[in-house]
């Protein structure tokens, strides 16, 4: 698939590294997920996060910079992103895409409108170009016939793919996927993994974070694995604690 040039792509800031420094994380039910973690994630690598189901999601949400209950520092290219206002962080945020369970698709918009929203809102392409691009993605993942339905009227895998496509369509450099293949069949899972793998290998996606219980297809790229256990982030490849 040939991706069009986005109008304001040059306004985005490249993310070379994300570093956790003295990082702590508390879940919404006020349970401690991580405490005093030191870990650097570099551009050009893929990272798989494992651990109790909710814990992975909490860490991925924090890496997408939308988690409120964090402490310590999260450095983006050596600058503490937690000190930034929403507007100040915007140039980096536009390079981060985050997909999670059913992706919070807006209920009052159709699947197609939901997918088009980030491009439309940020005026990245002409409306006709956005339409064409969204339809190409919908055909790639074989959900074109659902395009005009609202999320509540579609099966789970369509909502799942809707939020995945919405994150891919903005051409991010950092891709965060929380259980991306959950509720997808084998064929669509492989389409997704192959697409992301191609983009990762051609360098357009530079950093991937993901959590999955279905490892099979994800072996197409070499990921560094981390496990969250008893408040620690443990590097499984090295066996080291991220402290």
């Amino acid at each position: 698939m040939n991706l069009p040039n986005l109008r304001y792509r040059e306004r985005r800031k490249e993310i070379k590294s994300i570093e956790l420094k003295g990082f702590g994380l508390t879940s919404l039910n006020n349970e401690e997920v991580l405490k005093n973690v030191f870990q650097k994630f570099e551009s050009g690598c893929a990272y798989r996060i494992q651990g109790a189901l909710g814990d992975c999601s909490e860490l991925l949400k924090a890496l997408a910079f939308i988690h409120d209950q964090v402490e310590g520092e999260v450095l983006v290219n050596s600058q503490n992103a937690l000190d930034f206002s929403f507007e100040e962080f915007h140039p980096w945020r536009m390079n981060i895409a985050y997909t999670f369970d059913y992706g919070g698709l807006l209920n009052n918009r159709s699947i197609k409108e939901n997918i088009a929203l980030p491009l439309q809102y940020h005026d990245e392409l002409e409306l006709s170009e956005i339409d064409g691009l969204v339809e190409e993605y919908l055909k790639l993942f074989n959900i074109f016939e659902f395009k005009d339905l609202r999320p509540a009227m579609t099966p789970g895998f369509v909502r799942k793919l809707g939020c995945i496509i919405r994150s891919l369509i903005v051409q991010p450099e950092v891709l965060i996927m929380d259980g991306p293949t959950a509720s997808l069949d084998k064929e669509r899972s492989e389409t997704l993994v192959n697409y992301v793998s191609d983009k990762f290998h051609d360098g357009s996606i530079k950093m991937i974070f993901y959590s999955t219980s279905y490892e099979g297809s994800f072996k197409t790229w070499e990921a560094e694995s981390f496990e969250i256990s008893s408040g620690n982030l443990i590097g499984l490849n090295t066996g080291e604690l991220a402290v």
Partner: protein
Amino acid sequence: MIASITGQMDRWGSKLTGTIQNFFETILMGYLCVRAAYHDRSQGIRTIYSVVSAQVYFTGWQALPIISTLAIGSGAAVILQSSSQINLLGGVESIGTFMMVIVVRELAPLLTALIVVARSGTAVASEIGSMRVQREVDALESMGINPLSYIVFPRLMGGVISVLCLAFYYIMIAIFGGYLITIFHHQMDFYYYLTLVIDAVSPEDFFLFFTKNIFSGAIIFLVCCRQGMSVVCSSHEVPQVTTKAVFMSIKYIVGFHICVTALFYLNRLVKLGVL
């Protein structure tokens, strides 16, 4: 004994600090949403306009029947009551002043605000609460769309415009509808009645009208949006915050209206040299 008194004082203290905190957080949200809308270069007029117009349709247009009923009722009641009482005393020209004092200055802003709280405040609080539960707000943030400028600001704008228009509509219906309903009860000429009402209007009434209605609209939608945004993760929080939003909105609106009215008449007394 002492423990019970200190315990009671603790409860009062925490209620008071909670109320003060809520109040300032609501004001802060108002400031932040205006700031976010100003700084958000991506959010074009088209995006804001579509949400504002939808809000005006739901809050303003769809509330017209109930506002009409209330306005006709209150207008007719004021005309009937005042004309029958005044006729006994022989001062029918005071009917315009009664209409202005009771309906235009007090009833229209207050009843309009209460109707908007009941119809739209609840809808906004529960809609935003549901968006939080379904993580739509998280999704917006992750797409670089500030929820304050995308969700709160257009609703605030739409709400203020709707309340202003509804209050104006209320006044018109109360003045004209009230007259028509009571036409068989009295022999007052319409033009004479209209002249009495127009003569009773003072420049301060315009100030009072805009102050009460603009702030009422802002209070309702800020309080309801803030309560909706305060939902954390569970759908059973949604009705709870909706109820809280209604209670707080009514509390703030009534308090605000009493303060404005008191200041207005205090100013009158100062001008008359009484104080």
